[in-house]
């Protein structure tokens, strides 16, 4: 199955009640799949008139306690920033997937990781965070849909699945099953005690992000920050490969983590002790792991399909305990193992004899 289809089917299996979206390459497979599958399941599919509308429709479904989802690619995600900020302000659950393409502007439709800042640093207005999950395989596209709805409902906050056109289009075998990891617990999808269900036998409820009273918005922000701190303490997920004895640590997510994994093997075959840190959550970021382990490495190399975005979070975590450098390409080119192996050797300052 292709990654985009796996994500769509994963969302359906995870109980997605409603999907809203607007076409954009390279993720059209998702709305197309949803248009056929959601009605089969008796669920809601609407092709919206824009991404502004799609994210607002998600909000409309979310206020009534439904599991709602939208997907898009970079330019469309830019339009969704308005609604994402409102979802965060109103504390509403939602799942948003960004199948990232090259930018800025209309860019191109090649795989890219250049929306990292937008995803993890805010993107819209106000002090907020999204959970940002980075799948690296077709199976993870499927599995992470479950995880995303878990987190969205556990924290009542939007969750972004940040992937790219390569993973979206890639064909790999897929096991349809309810994944056990990574998941967030405990989570309840029963929204009756908070959602808008009609004010029958209870006082009316409202969702709002406008707080005009003296100090009220400050208190609201403090509450949000406390939630983010709780999430950051419990929900960080990452994978490490051969880091125990490594001199060189590669840090990469998504598609680049796959390339780096292979590079680790190639480097080790040459006697260079390399390891990999692959964040599964880009927010919250595995800052604590990096801070604790940074000193053991001679060099940390961050690899992205961008001009260098996640590298800033790595630098923040490492706090100059170890030299951190960046390698990446943006605008369509893929970093290959061969290329990366050479870069790693050069960054370590090793003069190869043969």
């Amino acid at each position: 199955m292709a990654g985009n289809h796996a994500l769509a089917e994963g969302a359906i299996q995870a109980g997605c009640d409603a999907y809203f979206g607007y076409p954009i390459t390279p993720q059209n497979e998702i709305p197309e799949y949803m248009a056929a599958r959601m009605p089969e399941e008796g669920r809601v599919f609407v092709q919206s008139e824009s991404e502004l509308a799609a994210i607002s429709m998600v909000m409309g479904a979310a206020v009534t306690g439904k599991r709602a989802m939208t997907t898009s690619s970079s330019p469309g995600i830019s339009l969704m920033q308005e609604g994402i900020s409102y979802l965060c302000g109103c504390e509403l659950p939602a799942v948003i997937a960004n199948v990232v393409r090259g930018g800025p502007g209309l860019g191109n439709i090649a795989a890219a990781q250049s929306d990292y800042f937008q995803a993890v640093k805010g993107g819209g207005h106000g002090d907020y965070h999204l959970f940002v999950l980075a799948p690296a395989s077709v199976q993870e596209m499927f599995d992470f849909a479950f995880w995303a709805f878990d987190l969205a409902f556990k924290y009542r906050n939007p969750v972004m699945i940040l992937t790219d056109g390569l993973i979206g289009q890639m064909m790999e075998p897929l096991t349809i099953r309810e994944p056990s990891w990574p998941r967030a617990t405990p989570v309840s999808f029963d929204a009756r005690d908070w959602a808008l269900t009609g004010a029958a036998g209870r006082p009316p409820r409202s969702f709002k992000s406008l707080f005009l009273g003296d100090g009220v918005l400050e208190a609201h922000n403090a509450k949000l920050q406390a939630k983010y701190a709780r999430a950051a303490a419990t929900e960080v997920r990452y994978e490490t490969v051969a880091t125990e004895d490594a001199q060189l640590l590669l840090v990469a997510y998504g598609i680049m983590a796959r390339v780096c994994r292979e590079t680790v093997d190639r480097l080790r075959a040459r006697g260079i002790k390399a390891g990999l840190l692959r964040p599964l959550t880009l927010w919250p970021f595995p800052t604590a792991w990096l801070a604790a382990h940074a000193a053991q490495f001679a060099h940390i190399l961050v690899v992205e399909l961008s001009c260098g975005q996640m590298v800033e979070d790595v630098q923040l975590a490492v706090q100059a305990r170890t030299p951190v450098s960046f390698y990446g390409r943006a605008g369509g080119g893929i970093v290959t193992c061969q290329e990366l192996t050479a870069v790693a050797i050069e960054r370590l300052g090793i003069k190869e004899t043969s």
Partner: protein
Amino acid sequence: MKYQPPHALQPVSTHYCAGCGHGVAHRLICEVIDELGIRERVLAVAPVGCAVLAYDYWNFDVTEAAHGRAPAVATGMKRCNPDKLVFTYQGDGDLAAIGAGEIVNAANRGELISVFFINNANYGMTGGQMAPTTLLGQKTTTSPAGRVARREGWPMKVVEMLTQLDGVAFAARCALHTPKHIRDAKRAIHTAFVTQMQEAGFAIVELLAACPVGWGVTPIQAIELVEQQMIPVYPLGVFKQASSPVSLPS
């Protein structure tokens, strides 16, 4: 008791200026909700505009929406909850300017929602700037010399526009300045809800409303302006009802 305020309206004072049309519109909607006995099934979407705090005044479930996006939020609500009665309440900046895309497409999809559109010919909340509905010659803070068609375009006739769309089952324009007009407006609001209950299609009621503070006049002068200046540009009537042809009121 001959008249008691509707149960669907919270017994609180609003933040609206004296003589503001929003108060009448709120009350009428709530009276209709009480009369139809649907308060516990209503889900409403408040706009960004002077009516942003409507959720503090209505005694039913309400959500905020980003500026102009109420019809999209309502779409998500109604599609997921077809047993509920969903309405949006929007000003003319919200609906006709920043939310033009959302209202046209929700109407065109024939979303089973009711839309109450408050046309007060300016942006009240932000201090009386020009709206798409501002009258020609009308002075606002961003059309200080008066609106000129060549420069700022013409007053936008939303109901006439939406009437053209096949998804629209009910479209009417009413005014809120005299007892007779207010009674007509209430009937139209009633029909807008019934249209939704009958799943006939999208329903919109445009309500010409006074904004004395935005217009810089007294409440009495403001209702005179509704009669003398707004109605000639924005004719009242039922423009569309189910499949019946456009007919003006008797």
